[in-house]
């Protein structure tokens, strides 16, 4: 028994050391956000601010509308992740529970969207959005983030692990496809839905190029754009940027803290394993 306790403690120590190593860049950025410019890059290599200051945060809040930008990013990320969860689960359902003509081709086309360099589509998509009159709107910013083949692919991988009997049993019970999808498949796939939600939220929250391009009004800008405003090309002032990055990280950390436990308790459980 004692031996097991020692291993347990040992394992935790190892894990915590690894965790600190992984966290190091983030912790350092957080620390640097409290440093004065002259303390950041020095021969003394300070890990902690020798003269802690809030100046960088004050600058972030006074020179940019960062609260407003966060609000915009939050709305956009929320809309996109909800839509993605719905559309991706529908598409993945079709790919994993039906046999139909052209299935392989349609699935290949879905995957192909992952391989098309997104940056080259930006200008053409700008044309589309501008013709639809969606410049400077949430709809315009969200438009290209509403679907992600990654999510479909992940859900397909998850659905394929379901035992065949799950659907057969439900059919014997007289369940329609729609009922099966909503009453059985989605509830038992909750971990994967949360994963897709979380993943989408974070990735949309972190988008930069597109939201910048389709907004020409300050009040429609997003938080990542705000962070670049805090940069300074001439002074390479890292403090304000690190402050901005730390502020922008708060919602994503909250989302992680909330949802991570749910998904790591078993995403691909398959619920009814035989």
């Amino acid at each position, binding site marked *: 028994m004692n031996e097991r306790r020692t291993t347990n403690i040992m394992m935790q120590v190892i894990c915590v050391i690894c965790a600190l190593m992984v966290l190091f860049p983030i912790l350092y950025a957080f620390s640097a956000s409290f440093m004065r410019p002259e303390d950041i890059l020095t021969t003394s290599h300070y890990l902690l601010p020798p003269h802690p200051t809030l100046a960088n945060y004050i600058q972030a809040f006074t*020179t940019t509308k960062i609260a407003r930008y966060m609000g915009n990013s*939050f709305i956009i990320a929320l809309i996109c992740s909800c839509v993605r969860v719905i559309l991706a689960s529908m598409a993945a359902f079709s790919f994993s529970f039906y046999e139909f003509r052209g299935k392989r081709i349609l699935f290949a086309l879905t995957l192909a969207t992952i391989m098309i360099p997104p940056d080259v589509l930006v200008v053409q998509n*700008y044309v589309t959005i501008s013709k639809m009159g969606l410049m400077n709107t949430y709809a315009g910013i969200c438009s290209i983030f509403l679907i992600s083949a990654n999510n479909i692919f992940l859900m397909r991988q998850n659905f394929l692990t379901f035992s065949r009997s799950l659907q057969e049993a439900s059919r014997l019970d007289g369940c329609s496809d729609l009922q099966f999808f909503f009453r059985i498949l989605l509830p038992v796939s909750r971990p994967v839905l949360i994963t897709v939600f979380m993943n989408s939220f974070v990735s949309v929250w972190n988008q930069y190029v597109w939201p910048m391009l389709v907004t020409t009004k300050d009040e429609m800008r997003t938080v990542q*754009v705000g962070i670049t405003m805090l940069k*300074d*090309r001439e*002074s390479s002032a890292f403090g304000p940027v690190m402050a901005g990055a730390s502020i922008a990280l708060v919602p994503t950390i909250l989302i992680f803290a909330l949802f991570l436990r749910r998904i790591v308790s078993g995403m691909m459980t398959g619920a009814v394993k035989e």
Partner: protein
Amino acid sequence: MKMKKMAALLLALAMLLALAACGGNNAAQDSSDPGTSGTPGTDSGTQTPAQTPESGTIELSYWYAMDGVGGQIIEKQIDAFNQTTGAEKGIHVTGVYQDWPGTNALTAAMTTDDTENMPDVIHMFSEYVNLIQDWERTVWAEDYITASGAAVSKDDLIPNTVEAYSIGGKMIGVPYAISALLLYYNQDQLTQAGFDAPPATIDEMARMLPALKEKTGAEYGLNVRLDQFEFENFIVTQGAAGTYFGNNQSGHAGQMTELSSQEAIQAFLTEWEKVIASGAYKETKDSMNEEFAQGLNSMCIMSSARIPTINDLVGDSFQWGVAAIPKVSASDVGGAYPSGSGLFMIDRGEPARVEAAWEFVQYLISADTQAMWLDGCGYVPINVHAEEAETYQSAISTEPRLSVPFDILKNTPGSVVSSFCPDNQTVNTVIQDSMLNFAGGSASKEETYAAITDGIADAFADYFRANPID
């Protein structure tokens, strides 16, 4: 379940935020868009900050590509305009930040001729003038600045900054946020090594470097990475009246299609070889500001825009100064070309807007507005009368070094200008890589020369294949 409560809370928060944001958005739209109510039947999905004859206020959109302190000063300049001239003449300007180099959104709007989402005035780095040079919506500043009623005339501006934004003698835009390349030197270390003044020529500098490394705490005597900006400055400041980097006066009298400064390049490389041979030269750009401020490098060559930053970083730890970059040959004119960015006007289809845009541009290049740069930035006021402005005088008295680039540019002849170089990104990479190899010892002087001239010729061929000259 705790989890559910948390999720509900999060959702409520999200909805609250959404409401707040939507409310804010509508309010902002209403204030900037009072005219749409008077024009029923137009597509309600498009939100044009259009001219509004009813209220008489013209809404202008001004895009700028400057972050940090520079961006903050620009916002102050816009506010000042809106409160003074803008209020008088019924013009309101909204600033829109665009990421460096600020051309992304413009090219996208150009592709579709999307006038609704174009700026009336754009702040753009001179390297990208090629992009709008032949565009039909570009409004050349020439006709406005030479008009009889203009508040600012060419004579009010530093001559070589006028040349820098002229093509064939006509101004396409106006200089705006201009800086000059300078030599920054650590006076304490110079004195310690037995020198009283910064070097006037590259040869002199090369001879000083070993002493700086040996007799002071510095690791290197000099730090500079030679990108196109630094390299071209050393080329164009040669000769009694400057040297054009490329043909057609470096693109200021027609399209630049090839290099025309082969001899000057040779001369520069010959001198620079001495700097490399000194063994006290750092050729990479890591954290130049901080390294200089920590006394790791005795001298470095950077834009004047960094004077305030260096001042903040150095504090009282040592005496330092700025001077003109060393000359290639003692008989050269020296100085620096005006680098940085200008303002360009775009015709969005309404003549009244262009008139209003010119009012705004004039305001931005007026002596008082230009003097505002000195309040935290190292940009050079391009209006010669800026010296008389109170802002200028108070800034210079607290930071006398800020007058150095101003004086340098005023005394450098109009022919010392940067090139309107096709595909400057590739050219920049070619020069940077070649000079790094030269300094690192992996290329000889001859190989470096060949790498630069061949590389630039290739880049131009590439550019003109895609953009043939009619």
